[in-house]
């Protein structure tokens, strides 16, 4: 008997095997035919309905609209949305900031059609008494329980033929794919990729801090645990160690680090220090000695010792823990230690350092390393996402020009900034370039042979990619280099002929970047900016979008970027990753694409028209008043026009918009009972 794919044969359920390849789309069979129904369901939300829907019903529409139009199919969506606060819905920017337990905070640009539904929710919520609270919840009280919210959504999607949440998500993904949304975006919105958020930009163009992202300009939100670990709270054995390790902040040779290790060893001759340090202090000190004598880079040693040192200062890992046999205690202690840090990246780094420390402890008779499920902790590490500053091309140019004016090695520093900002080179890579690696004759093709990883070996056709001002700086340096009387084969040298040190370059260029841009940028920000602008250039040409506002003529040579990255959109990200020397494109998109809001805003730019009656509902005013707020054409208005009106009205209700205050439309609380649209009460 031929078995049915979905059914069973002889009582045995046949499991559908997983996809052979890693696909962005959840290609579940039998869900493609649901796509028209899902599309119709979502469309009905913007159509005129009989009577005014209540706030609860509108909220459900907003949630479903967010799934269908904005493609948010990530796990625990209901949990995240049920606890949504006002600050997380950046209505003016059209961005939803989602926080889920165990995952880093992520920003998602919303489709205008779903955003207009959220605007409707906000306008209705603005009439409720609890709206006056600081940072109130967005959803009405009924949907603040994730289970109830999910049940409510499932009830509605069942009318569109979706038997389960999974089937619905699958249909939504296929709908988006059929509508031309790039699979990469679908994949990210299904919660498979965590991208570094770009800073929120305020109306004045200046980055403003968000609650869940570490703010720029060095300001961080309060972290109670972190405050408890100030220097005064350090155990008494720590200050001598800190004093010795202070030297790690300065660039030093291997000999210098060995001397530090010898200094640390002298501490063990001090009986009082040994008593105060206990097991944990001695282990830490011995571990640091091993690190100082290892081949690791100074920056890595400094990061490892600082991370673990901070955890020890907070007394999270202590002697009783090292004496404990309980895996639960050890795991809890590791988790506590990691949670001392605020951002996802810092937590991962702390976990890595702590693991190295535990491995060292295991070699010295404290086998706690095996008690800890490191991978499980890493998976549920959570934390806020760190916003990285995005340098514009003009800023990179300004910084390079300013560097060029510094004597005597300014030209070399400017060339380094150009190689990083226009060629995407790491600082260690550009310090290892030899004269043979840089070929001005061959269109400035830079051959990178020594890199951070093996995958870093590559060839960057800088002449094709870089703008003319950048090539001018390189030409200037090359001419300067030719005049130097040195036997060194290194390309990037100072006036004396000595090779530049990566740490020195990093520090000096970072200082200049901060001075010129006013952003908390580091040397690596140049590489990130370079990757971002390459992708923005490529995608603008591929999709025919208007150019990014921060990408004027100073930016990369667009046609060159297109030629180098290729015409095939299936492999553009792979090509970009190869050009940056990454092993996998995942790293590229997670850490180097800082203009995702801009890309997604173009991808999710759904259009639609809304009738005057529905527009009035969505503005929570009468139809007559709506005509004053929105421009209608043949009885309907565009979604964008309605969004603008909603934003104006929300500002008016918040009482901070003088222009709205002067408008004739009264706030809804002042309308007469007959003017206010009648809201249906009772169950939805």
């Amino acid at each position, binding site marked *: 008997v031929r078995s049915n794919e979905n059914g069973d044969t002889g009582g045995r359920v046949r499991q559908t095997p997983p996809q*052979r390849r890693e696909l962005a789309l959840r290609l579940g069979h039998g869900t493609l035919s649901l796509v028209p129904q899902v599309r119709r369901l979502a469309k009905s939300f913007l159509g005129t309905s009989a009577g005014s829907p209540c706030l609860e019903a509108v909220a459900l529409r907003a949630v479903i609209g967010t799934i269908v139009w904005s493609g948010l199919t990530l796990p625990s969506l209901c949990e995240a949305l049920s606890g949504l606060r006002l600050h997380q819905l950046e209505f003016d920017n059209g961005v939803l900031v989602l926080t889920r337990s165990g995952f880093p905070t992520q920003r998602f640009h919303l489709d205008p059609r779903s955003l207009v539904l959220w605007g409707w929710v906000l306008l209705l919520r603005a009439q409720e008494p609890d709206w006056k609270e600081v940072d109130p919840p967005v959803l009405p009280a009924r949907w603040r329980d994730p289970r109830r919210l999910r049940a409510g959504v499932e009830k509605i999607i069942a009318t569109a033929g979706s038997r389960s949440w999974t089937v619905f998500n699958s249909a939504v993904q296929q709908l988006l794919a059929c509508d031309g949304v790039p*699979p990469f975006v679908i994949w990210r919105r299904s919660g498979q990729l965590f991208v570094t958020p770009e800073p929120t930009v305020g109306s004045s163009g200046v980055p403003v801090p968000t609650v869940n992202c570490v703010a720029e300009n060095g300001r961080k939100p309060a972290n109670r645990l972190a405050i408890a670990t100030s220097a005064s709270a350090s155990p008494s054995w720590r200050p001598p160690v800190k004093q010795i390790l202070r030297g790690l902040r300065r660039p030093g040779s291997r000999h210098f680090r060995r001397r530090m290790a010898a200094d640390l060893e002298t501490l063990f001759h001090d009986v009082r220090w040994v008593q105060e340090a206990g097991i944990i202090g001695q282990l830490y000190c011995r571990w640091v000695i091993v690190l100082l004598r290892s081949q690791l880079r100074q920056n890595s040693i400094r990061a490892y010792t600082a991370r673990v040192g901070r955890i020890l200062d907070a007394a999270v890992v202590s002697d009783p823990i090292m004496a404990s046999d309980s895996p639960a205690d050890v795991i809890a202690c590791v988790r506590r230690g990691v949670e001392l840090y605020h951002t996802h990246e810092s937590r991962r780094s702390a976990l890595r350092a702590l693991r190295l420390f535990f491995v060292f402890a295991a070699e010295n008779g404290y086998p706690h390393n095996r008690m800890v499920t490191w991978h499980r902790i*890493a*998976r549920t590490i959570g934390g806020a996402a760190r916003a990285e500053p995005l340098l514009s091309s003009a800023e990179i140019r300004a910084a390079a020009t300013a560097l060029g004016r510094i004597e005597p090695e300014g030209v070399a520093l400017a060339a380094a900034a150009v190689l990083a900002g226009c060629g995407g080179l790491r600082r260690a890579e550009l310090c290892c370039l030899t004269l043979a690696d840089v070929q001005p*004759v061959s269109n400035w093709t830079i051959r990178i042979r020594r890199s951070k990883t093996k995958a870093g070996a590559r060839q960057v056709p800088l002449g094709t990619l870089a703008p003319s001002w950048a090539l001018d700086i390189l030409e200037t340096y090359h001419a300067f280099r030719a005049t130097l009387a040195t036997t060194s084969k290194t390309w990037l040298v100072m006036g004396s002929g000595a090779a530049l040190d990566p740490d020195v370059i990093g520090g000096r260029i970072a200082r200049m970047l901060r001075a010129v841009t006013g952003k908390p940028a580091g040397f690596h920000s140049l590489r990130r900016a370079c990757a971002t602008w390459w992708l923005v250039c490529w995608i603008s040409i591929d999709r025919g979008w208007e150019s990014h506002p921060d990408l004027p003529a100073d930016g990369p040579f667009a046609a060159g970027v297109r030629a*180098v990255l290729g015409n095939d959109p299936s492999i553009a990200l792979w090509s970009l990753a190869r050009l940056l020397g990454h092993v996998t494109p995942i790293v590229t998109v997670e850490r180097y694409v800082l203009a995702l809001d801009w890309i997604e805003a173009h991808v999710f730019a759904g259009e639609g028209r809304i009738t005057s009656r529905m527009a009035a509902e969505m503005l929570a005013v009468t139809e007559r008043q709506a005509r004053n707020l929105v421009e209608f054409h043949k009885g309907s208005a565009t979604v964008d026009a309605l969004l603008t009106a909603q934003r104006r009205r929300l500002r008016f209700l918040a009482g901070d918009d003088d222009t709205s205050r002067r408008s004739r439309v009264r706030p809804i609380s002042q309308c007469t009972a007959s003017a206010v649209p009648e809201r249906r009460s009772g169950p939805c």
Partner: protein
Amino acid sequence: MALATTSELIRSALRNYRTQTGVSGSTAASYAARLRVVLGEQRHRIRPGSRSATRRASHPTAARVLAAIRQREDIGVSATRTRSRLHLPNAPPDAAREGEGAIDWVPAQFWTRSPAHARRAQWRKQHATMSRLAFQHDSRTAQLADYASAHSRLFSRAPRAITGDQRISTLIEGLAVVYGMTPSTLTTLTQGSGPRDDSDLVIDFREGRLWIRLPRVGYNNDTLSQACAEASRSGSDWASVPLVPYLRDVARLLHTQQEPAIMRSFAEVTRKIERRRLARLARSLPGWLTRCGLPGVLASLLTGDFDYTPYLATSAYINVSEQHVRMAHVSAFRCFEAQIAAECRRRAWTFASVLGPGMAPSLSGNRHFGSRIVPLTGRLQQAIQALETRRREARLGGSLTALARAWNLTAVYTWFRLSWAAALRPCRDPVVRRGDVEPETGWIFVRDKDSPFSRESRLVPLALRDAQLLERFAHDGDRVRVRLRAMTRTAMDQLADDAVFFLVVDGRARSLSAQLVRLVLQQEGLGDLFPWPLNAPRHYWLTRALELEMPIDQIEPFIGHSHEPLPWGSLSLVSLKRLSETMRRLGTILLREAGFRAE
């Protein structure tokens, strides 16, 4: 006979034991080793930390994948050789025959449940994929300066000005930098005036022509009927291409001078050439030519080596002419040569074109090669017209026999039309199910390759008209089912509820299959008009796509010849809506060409 040593005693005892019990040799050897430890001179020492003797050898495919990556590696600049550990099993034979490698066929072990291992495995896989993509800026790709150097050195002198071994060396290196033949391929080159059984790559010095054996041509001669051969384009499993003028002149000079034992000199010269540099140039050439507009399948074909290439499947489907291949190559190579000339100018190196002043297309020797089951358009139109004429409305009120015959013919016609509209596989793509059609925007969901490991699915675009026709057909099928269930004794037990295509044969409703389609055609007297195997539409599609100069790379994934990274893969920026336009356009053209009426 007295046994002198313990070893002899053990050996003797085990020989007897083996004779009595019949245990295998390996078991006896294992026992012997253990007994030597226990009864021997006690000189064996068991060290727990030592490497186990029973440790599994590395998987052969792992070595093959690694070798493929290494082959593409430039030893000077990359050294991943000690770190690459790709333990991938073989692809199933069906997929392997279509050119899919182990990397394309990632089994369950790559989808490990441990997230840490999954991430590591994913990174390895992506590293291997990136390695295979061989980007222009990859450290293993030869750059324009390398080609400029080679061109300046090889082709700056007239063929008559070079002599002796230099002439042979120019020809060999010329084949590498003009056609992308690697040194390992060139070592298999033999001399002849046409195809030879003992070789895959033959050079005809007199004619100045290369003969390249294709790895597979759809079906072999034995399984194809005479009727099919008459109704199809002529095909061959030997591709041929005339050499570019410069190399042709060199080859003719070698031929006219009757140099003794040219091929022996060939082998000697090949040994003397610096293989690594030449391999780098040859390996990178298909990528450069593809970027200059040569279809990937033709670029791979000209290298004479189809191992580990994503174009193997497509190469088995196409039927092209010698002239077509030559002109496509010359057009792309001229574009590439312009870049090389610019590089030579920048470096003040001499440059001479290998293509000559003008290569006018000549119609002589325009033989077709490749697939043998690409239907002749006239015969195809005749067959489709006959099928459309015979088609009639299935009346629910009539007799069961009449209903069954009319319905069967409608089902076969609709299925044929779908095959020609979307180039579905007749056997490996299972029958279309009810929930797998999106009639509003024209998509169909195809469940592909019923493999033991996993399943590969894909979305295939359909012209809107055909999607709606399919939807209508599904509704008609529902009505026929109701009629069969309610008013006849037709057995429905072998028919899945959600199968769209079904036939009624011998009082039993069955899902449509290739055999049943043949049966229905025979019953209707149309069997002779359709002599082609049922996957002929796929061959026709790819062949015509090449001839119409459609971007074949955009069509291949929808056909099912997909390789990492996929257009719908997680790191793709493709708009499927835009990508599908080519497929829909081609589908519409081919349906019209095949003679299907607009419904």
